């Protein structure tokens, strides 16, 4: 077990983790942040996406010991049911979530995009979420939801 200090959603956490423990296991099982999902655990589906220093990464392919000095943000860190992030509200309003399983990862990926480029084109939105699979919506509503938030940034 390795001692690690993580900053997750603005809170500093002191943990002991096995060297092979993935960031996905750490956030879900050690920190109870179950909004981050596992869909394949092989880096194929994107459902485990979290932000590390503002960049979307696949937490299932990331070792916790490798991100000790980074700023980690999960879906729980950007808004709540009481104070949702505009993207979280837009996903409901545009029907961008059906089963909802890919939704936290999609929203974090979209947030990273909008933080970098507040008014992206539809093509840029598609490029950004191309690594996130959704099996329910056909993606079109997701693009519309993200574009609607981008529009308010204008």
């Amino acid at each position, binding site marked *: 077990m390795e001692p690690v200090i993580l900053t997750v959603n603005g809170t500093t956490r002191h943990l002991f983790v096995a060297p092979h423990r993935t960031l996905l296991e750490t956030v879900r099982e050690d920190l109870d942040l179950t909004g981050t999902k*596992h869909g394949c655990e*092989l880096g194929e589906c994107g459902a485990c996406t979290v932000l590390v220093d503002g960049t979307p990464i696949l937490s299932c392919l990331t070792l916790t010991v490798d991100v000790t000095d980074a700023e980690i943000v999960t879906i729980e860190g950007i808004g709540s049911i009481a104070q949702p992030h505009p993207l979280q509200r837009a996903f409901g309003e545009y029907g961008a979530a*059906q*089963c909802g399983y890919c939704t936290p990862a999609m929203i974090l990926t979209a947030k990273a995009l909008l933080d970098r480029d507040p008014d992206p084109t539809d093509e840029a939105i598609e490029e950004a979420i191309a690594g996130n*699979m959704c099996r329910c919506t056909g*993606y079109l509503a997701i693009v519309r939801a993200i574009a609607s938030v981008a529009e308010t940034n204008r």
Partner: protein
Amino acid sequence: MTIDPHHGIVGKAAPRVDSLAQATGMTRYVDDLSFPGMLHGKILRSTQAHARIVSIDTSAAEALPGVHVVLTGTDLPVPFGLLPVSQDEHALAIDKVRHVGDAVAAVAADDPDIAQRAIDLIEVAYEPLPVVTTITEAVKVTDEPIHREPPRNNRDREMSLEFGDVDAGFEAADHIREDVFFYQGNNHAALETHGAVAVVEEDGRLHVFSATQVPHYLHRILASVLEMPEGRIRVTANPTGGGFGAKTDVFSHELVTAQMARITGRPVKIVLTREEVFYAHRGRHPVLMWVKTGFISDGAITAMSFKTFLDGGAYGSYGAASLLYTGQLQTVTYRIPAYRFQGVRVFTNKPACGPKRGHGTPQPRFALEVHLDKAAEELGLDPITIRKRNLVEPFTSTVNHLRITSCGLSECIDRVVETSGFQDRYRNLPGGRGLGFAVGAYMSGAGLPIYFNDMPQSEVMLKVDRGGGVTVYSMAADCGQGSTTMLATVVGETLGLNPSELVLVTADTDLTPVDLGSYSSRVTFMAGNAALDAALKLADLVLTAVADELNLDPDVVSLGRGVVLAGDREIPWAEAVRIAEAKWGLLVTTGTYKPPKDIKGDYRGAGVGPSPAYSYSACVAEVDCDRETGHVSVERVWLAHDVGRAINPLLVRGQIEGSVHMALGEVLMEEQAFRGALHSGPSLLDYKIPTVLEMPQVESIIVESIDAEGPFGAKEVGQGPLLPVIPAVVNAVHDALGIRIDEIPVRPEKVLAALDDLERGGDGRYGPTDLPNYTFRSPQRVDPPPETVTV
């Protein structure tokens, strides 16, 4: 009688009631549950495709520190299967394994790593048996059938039916066409893998949480296999991370999780890996099809003969129904005066197939719609004319005794033809581009339950608290399709209440009355009707009490938005319910739905296909094909769907777009293919589903035929829109390149082979030519219903 919405709730695009929970990560899927002292389970799966189990040595696994229980087949000896006719599975294999990935043993341990190490320590000695992986092999006589039942071959089920005089129909035809098609199997690939958590509660009862679409069926099978009274088991279906039919069967992991919790007294969780999902499967059947149709020269169909051969994999599952679905719904879109259907489902040493979105109907729909396209060309008709010539009429009976009521198919066709500019652009697009057209139809719920009984198929209960809050109780399981939102909308519309302010208690066998589950697109029609029934009764109780209290004629008392309108007074809903509770006591109402009895024929097999209403769809697809690489890109899709009435247009559009996505995956890239008996790529890297970059623009057109029996006129939307997309794309490839790909998926290598054939003077066709050497029984002859239109 249709009840018209007037509160502006039904018909309004609104977010799902659980949308913020989903978007903030609060929704609790089964893998998000954990309990103090919870153990983690793993399943040992067969490395053999077909083998006798000579011995299993679990001693090393049992001795590993941290291991609490090890199970093998003999620990759960009661067989099960979703249908009464398919009791051919065990929670863990007994005596022999039937496919790679068949469950053999299970372990529960302190953590998943220990459980996996214990699994690796289990020694299984197998005696290999002959392996069957194709339909052609499976119809042959064998000394070692996969299931040991006479006769000694691998036939699971056979159907042979004839409605009307088919031979006479062919004799009356001016033109006869025959085609052979193959549709490869594919997987649901829901983003959430399957999982279950079982807990022994304080009162000693077993509580099983599962990612299931069918808590009621899971409840029944758990009781049977675990040999416990149903009352000692509680099943909760967590919101599932996508279903599409994957989670309508009962699986090994659900049964062994429950048994291991029962033995240890500790909570136990098993979540499948993605690889295990591909081997647990229950996805689309590979189907080989032959269709022969007689036409008179104006395109009218005189007779049709349809044969299907289904590769069922190792178990029965829903297969008996899947088989019939490959034959029954052809008549729901077209008037076919005489119809013969012969089909057989065989066992092979591969993961069992089952229901996937469209259950057994996308395969024949693909065959039929491509076949009609070819026939139109030979008859000198355009693709629209030949369909319109044969279109089913509303309020008729089909030759196989299905009751057609509302039907917006004609309008669906007109709308996609018009918006896509089909008539001008078909056959006229430049190099490599093409347009294709097709239609489809689907059930708004299976007319009959899985196990035969006369009880309602959906039951809903409403309870009112003293603050005016209304709680809706229903076992309908939300697998992402929005059933919970639908219930809230129907009750909200009926009572004039905001759907987001209702309390929804769903999918829990302790708390909610029975709903058969989220399959066959039944929930909006059936649970929606049950909810409407309960809400109308509640409205009646409240309005009667208010009228009594104010000494008013009940006719002048009605519901407004959040108020009771009593003469010239407006009484707030919360006050009205207090008046009602004072008069009636506890305000609880129940509603039920049972399909009419007269919607099915009287023949063996008549139980599959009937539905209280059918949805209709029409599709135009535009493709851009690359002659060099064989790559087909779908550029735009126009999809019109007759949903009866859109309870929530936002969710209806979502189902249409999602159906297009899934259909495009099936038609262009996805295949549950095998190298021998090994899956050729059991991961989402190898099994590719469309990403956003493959998604075309979709023009969703909602057609409302207002069904007289649907809740507020509604029919289904979850499955039907998938059906026409697949043949529309295939027909578009023909328009673009002049080739015919008679096999799904349309992979680039098939396109190149067909182009090559065309260049060398062939007919430019890629697809199967031969049928297995198999003789069907003589058909069961069924007279058409008297009102059937004959040519």
